[in-house]
């Protein structure tokens, strides 16, 4: 009781005393520090939330989306492919990955100054994100390094050895992802529009870095590994549209962190990216469903969620550069184009991109990267200034037609790196551990043959 009274006295005292004392006005420096700290708190809160949202895209989002699309004997093996990236990519990132992607190095790959996360602490890295702790930036980028390789797994679903996948993902991170991330987002990277790149490319949240690299690598994997045994004669229906639906909706929600978080702050640019993301997804789902409805007579749940994911892919590079109406247009085009890739083109060429990682991410990512050059405008993003301090013209709609060419070059570089890098990696994996499970194991399913367990034990 006495203690409480004393506390109340102290509080009252602290309220009255400053009012009585002749306190000097805070210095401008102190004011500035106060504002800066408030901005850091605001921005960092959104960035930490975004980190968590993007991790949720891989586990459980992508894991569920992919797992629902395979046969039930492979449900765990497929989930494990996504989950294992949460492990492998994280450890690699801490040791060397972050440095190779974001350290200062050549125009192709980063240096080694951040190995073992040396010097990555609470102080901001002013080149990348001046208002948030360097650690927050590092974590946010890690989540991208996790989901990108995980996307590839859709192409070799139901037939790759677990050990081979672990080796593949490790090498792929080192040879394809870190260089591409450095070229587009790292300081001095050759495609970095904001930090001294020679060929300025706009890729707000990873159209080339994430979707083109993973999607094109997926196609190379599908071609190199060959078809699943029994494809396309045997029925290989998705075993649970319910799991896929939940996964896709988690991806949609997580994508707000992916795109709006790529503003690396919580102001108007983040809101604009949030808006573009949502509109792109909805318009693409509409586009895919309409195509399906016209061609097959029924709009399917799988069509709707595939379309939404395609739209999210297409809008990713553009999300921080375009207004809402172009986002709708881009999304709709993405839904239609990815539908045609998955339903028409794949069937024509006969490759077994089992879960359509190329049809959605490779095609959608390329389309998005190129359209970003068309619709990017400084009305949304005025981060690039000319010598006089005026916002530079960004895309075709601003009158800068040359940007479309830059985007094409950036996309071509991503294709080339993905094809060459993935072929080399597959060859290495093939010669050391072997890529495919045996036919017996494939028939038995990955769950039992690779992990010794079953996804559904209903007689328990």
């Amino acid at each position, binding site marked *: 009781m006495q203690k409480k009274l004393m506390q109340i006295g102290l509080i009252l005292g602290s309220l009255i005393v400053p009012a009585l004392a002749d306190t000097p006005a805070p210095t401008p420096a102190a004011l500035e520090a106060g504002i800066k700290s408030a901005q850091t708190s605001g921005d960092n809160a959104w960035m930490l939330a975004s980190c968590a949202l993007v991790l949720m895209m891989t586990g459980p989002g992508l894991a569920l989306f992919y797992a629902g699309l395979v046969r039930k004997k492979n449900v765990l093996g497929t989930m494990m492919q996504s989950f294992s990236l949460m492990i492998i990519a994280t450890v690699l990132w801490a040791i060397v990955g972050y440095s190779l992607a974001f350290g200062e190095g050549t125009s192709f790959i980063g240096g080694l100054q951040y190995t073992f996360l040396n010097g990555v602490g609470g102080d901001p890295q002013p080149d990348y994100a001046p208002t948030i702790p360097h650690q927050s930036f590092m974590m946010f980028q890690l989540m991208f390094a996790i989901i990108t390789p995980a996307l590839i797994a859709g192409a070799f679903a139901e037939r790759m050895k677990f050990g081979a996948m672990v080796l593949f993902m490790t090498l792929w991170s080192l040879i394809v992802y870190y260089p591409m991330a450095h070229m587009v987002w790292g300081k001095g990277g050759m495609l970095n529009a904001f930090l001294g790149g020679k060929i300025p490319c706009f890729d707000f949240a990873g159209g080339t870095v994430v979707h083109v690299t993973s999607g094109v690598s997926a196609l190379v994997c599908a071609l190199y590994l060959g078809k699943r045994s029994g494809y*396309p004669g045997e029925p*290989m*229906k*998705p075993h649970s549209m319910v799991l896929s639906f939940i996964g896709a909706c988690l991806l949609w929600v997580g994508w707000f962190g992916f795109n709006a978080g790529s503003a690396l702050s919580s102001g108007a640019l983040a809101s604009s990216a949030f808006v573009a993301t949502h509109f792109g997804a909805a318009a693409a789902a509409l586009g895919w469903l309409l195509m399906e409805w016209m*061609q*097959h007579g029924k709009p*399917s749940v799988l*069509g709707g969620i595939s379309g939404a994911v395609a739209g999210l892919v297409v809008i990713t590079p553009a999300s921080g550069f375009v207004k809402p109406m172009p986002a709708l247009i881009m999304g709709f085009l993405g839904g239609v184009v990815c539908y045609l890739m998955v*339903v028409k083109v794949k*069937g024509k060429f006969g490759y077994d991109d089992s879960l359509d990682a190329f049809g959605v991410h490779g095609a959608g990512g390329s389309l998005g990267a190129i359209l970003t050059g068309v619709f990017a405008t400084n009305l949304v993003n005025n981060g690039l200034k000319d010598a006089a301090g005026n916002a530079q013209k960004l895309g075709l709609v601003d009158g800068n037609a040359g940007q479309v060419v830059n985007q094409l070059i950036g996309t071509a570089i991503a294709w080339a790196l993905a094809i060459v890098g993935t072929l080399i990696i597959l060859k290495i994996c093939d010669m050391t551990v072997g890529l495919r499970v045996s036919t017996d194991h494939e028939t038995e399913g990955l769950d039992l043959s690779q992990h010794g367990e079953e996804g559904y034990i209903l007689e328990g």
Partner: protein
Amino acid sequence: MKKVEAIIQPHKLEEVKDALKQIGIDGMTIIDVRGHGRQKGHKEVYRGQEYQVDLLPKVKIEMVVPSERAEEVVKTLLQTARSGKIGDGKIFVSEVAEAIRIRNEDRGEAAL
């Protein structure tokens, strides 16, 4: 004793079961089965990949009843399991040589 096996539409099961209870048939075994007769399957489409599904889910009811009750059971099944459309199913009746209750080794109709 006769064994009555009926393959019916799954959604008719409750109605059939209740009607059999009404006429005093308590013992039965229900099995989820898949099959097809004259009924055609349906088409499913996943990302443009079409699948013809021929085997459709059905429910099979098995009962062993005293011979003189078999016709009554069949009539009840016909009344309740029928919708009049293709796919309603079939009923098979066969002779049973012996029935034995495991608990106390009752034999014959006493075991039913």
